[in-house]
């Protein structure tokens, strides 16, 4: 017997319970962007190849374009808008600015959240670990070496990521 999937009516996003009414088959990326006006997560390919849509789910960098919104009951979602308290920059955000590790910026929110996930798992990564850990992210402007430098700088500062 086919299960009738219920509508998704609540998500835990950036520390707040957000009310909504969405088909469970919709992607988290679309719900964040189109229902909750959290447009920091970007669409780049829709098939998990570019990671511009990366958000943290229970602290783990996740492709929101491949995540069905019906699968997120009880999970904590953090988007770029919720990475740092309003008016403050997270150390990785600051490191990206300091290293000029962006051009057009479309990949930047996903890059930053990917880097946060990497540094939480590996606080002092080698260059090879950064390249390996971030290789799923595409920066079409080609700022890769600067992003590596930004992650190294954020790691070198230590502190809570």
């Amino acid at each position, binding site marked *: 017997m086919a299960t009738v999937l219920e509508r998704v009516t609540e998500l835990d996003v950036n520390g707040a319970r957000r009310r909504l009414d969405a088909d469970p088959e919709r992607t988290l990326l*679309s719900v964040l962007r189109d229902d909750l006006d959290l447009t*920091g997560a970007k669409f780049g390919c829709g098939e998990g190849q570019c990671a511009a849509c990366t958000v943290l789910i229970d602290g783990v960098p996740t492709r929101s374009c491949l995540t069905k919104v019906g699968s997120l009951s009880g999970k904590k979602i953090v988007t770029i808008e919720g990475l740092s308290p309003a008016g403050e920059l997270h150390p990785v955000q600051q490191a990206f*600015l300091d290293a*000029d590790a962006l051009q*057009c910026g479309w990949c*930047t929110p996903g890059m*930053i959240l990917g880097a946060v996930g990497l540094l939480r798992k590996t606080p002092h990564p080698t260059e090879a670990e950064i390249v390996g850990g971030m290789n799923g992210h*595409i920066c079409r402007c080609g*700022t890769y070496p600067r992003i590596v430098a930004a992650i190294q700088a954020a790691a070198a500062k230590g502190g809570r990521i």
Partner: protein
Amino acid sequence: MRRRDFFAALGGGILVLLVDDSDAQEAGGGARRGTNEPAPTALSAWLHIGETGLVTVYTGKVEVGQNARTALTQAAAEELRAPVESIRMVMGDTDLTPFDMGTFGSMTTPRMNPQIRKAAATAREMLLDLAAEKWSVDRKSLTISDGRVSAGSHSAGFGELTSGQKLTRTIPGSASLTPAKDWKVSGKSVPKVNGREIVTGAHKYAYDVHRPEMQYGKVLYPPSYGATLVSLDGSAAEKMPGVKVVRDGDFAGVTAPDPMAAEKALAALKAEWKQLTAETDSKAVYDYFRRTAQNAPAASALTPVSYTIAYIAHVPLEPRAAVAEWNAGKLTVWTGTQRPFGVRSELSTHFGIAEDQVHVIMPDTGSGYGGKHTGDAALEAARLAKAVGKPVKRNWTREEEMTWAYFRPGGVIDVAAKLNPDGTIAEWEFHNYNSGPSGLSSPYSVATKREQHHPSKTPLRQSSYRGLAATANHFARECYMDELAHSVKMDPLEFRLKNAQDERLRAVIQAAANKFGWQNRTKAAGRGFGIAAGFEKGGYVATCAEVSITNGVVKVVRAAISFECGAIVNPQHLSNQVEGALAMGIGGALFEQIQFGNNQILNARLSQYRVPRFNDMPKIDCVLVDRPDLPSAGAGETPIVGIAPAIGNAIFDATGKRIRSMPMAPKGLQNS
């Protein structure tokens, strides 16, 4: 905005209107202008200082990641002697900014930067006049710095001076400017002015725009290029909640309240198409270019070798996007484009309405690389919005972007030369089929040369791409220069210096070679070294590369690139552009290629079309050659041209195999 509206909209203050002193803004090559675009109007930029002291600069140029917003802010700050933070730049808004042909051809720095500096310099002189009058002091006793005018015990901010004023001055383009050697803000690494909005996710790109009542639009595209719609049954889609089906000749689409509903509605359309037989495909296209060339070259005594260049896609990470809204007959569109005024023209023509009834707003956009000149998404959104009577968002998917935008042209290049015994070039013959004329002319000294571009039929829609055909032409020329060097057993660096008379070209070649350690390079198994150089759009570039080859897999391990484009406007952002261009160039050099057949694109997804990633990056040493004595040229394009031939020459050095096709190693060397 009309002049008389300015003070009504902005309040009092002072306003400087700058008359364009250029004969015409250059189109920069390629089919870029619509036929009915107006000629450039007389004003090219304007600058307002409000009664609060806020400086607002208006330009039709746009920001797509190349940091024009920051560089132009620096230009105004420099001449106004004001802090960067006190300046706001309004860009690419057709109701607010002067007409501009578009942001392409590396023209923002050489053209718009001096224009804005002239407007700011004039405003500075007006502020000094106001202060001299207000305090009844000799104008010569005034100083201006950090956003304040002072004289003895007097001191006032710009707002205090402009308060109660409604002064307009129209100036010719010939106002005098601060020379580069005296720059205090320009020439410095001012950080990206809106970087904070980007790293926090606050910046709203076109893809992110949301309007009340907005619907999500999808367009029914043909299954292949050129196919025509025979019949359409939209009845199933129309029964879906909130869905509307739109049909207008061959144009068909749907709108729905959320994106998934729009996708489902599109899938429910039953369409019958009449398809065309393809004239060629991605394998046969190089012969097709020759066969369809308009002006075949005259017979030559020299025997040429042929290089080929594949079609490639821009892959801007933000695909094309637009939101359109109709209000009492006036159309407003938010879209990511390099030509907001061109898009306005496309829309006004299509709907048969006056241009002042179309307002195009261009939010800073998720890159373009020459790929966002046209208003395709804007037109689709506007057609759907008009039909359904609500605002419509039309965000392209990656597959749509890689199928229905346009491509960098493929091409064939035949090149031949005759050398004198001393290694100088006696004769040079160079024929480019289809890819284009940019960078066609050799920057080396040659006694007799014949260089021609032969336009051909193109099976795919093609247009601008970062550097245009300069990448193709430098690939063929610089690889062939390497072939010539080897034919006379000269070192490739020595051979280039032997034939390069242009001092600026020699300077970048030597700078790159020194940084790379060309003279001290050591041969090892599976390793090779290559060098290439060139000139285009006012910029000189030289690139050295070291490759490693393991089981046929080519990896660029190290590169040195030197670039000279006159007086440097922002060193940090310049090196970022130069490195980024090199990174992007690796894709076209080694693996990017559009595959097509039966009038269809066969690899329109990122899982099928490989672009450079973190692990493709070499260690990059970037040398910026500053020439404060020369006018600043643009830098977003030319640094891309050297990396492909440098890699090709390095592969030859490592393997003895000359690869004359871009991409050079799409599946590794054995299968290429």
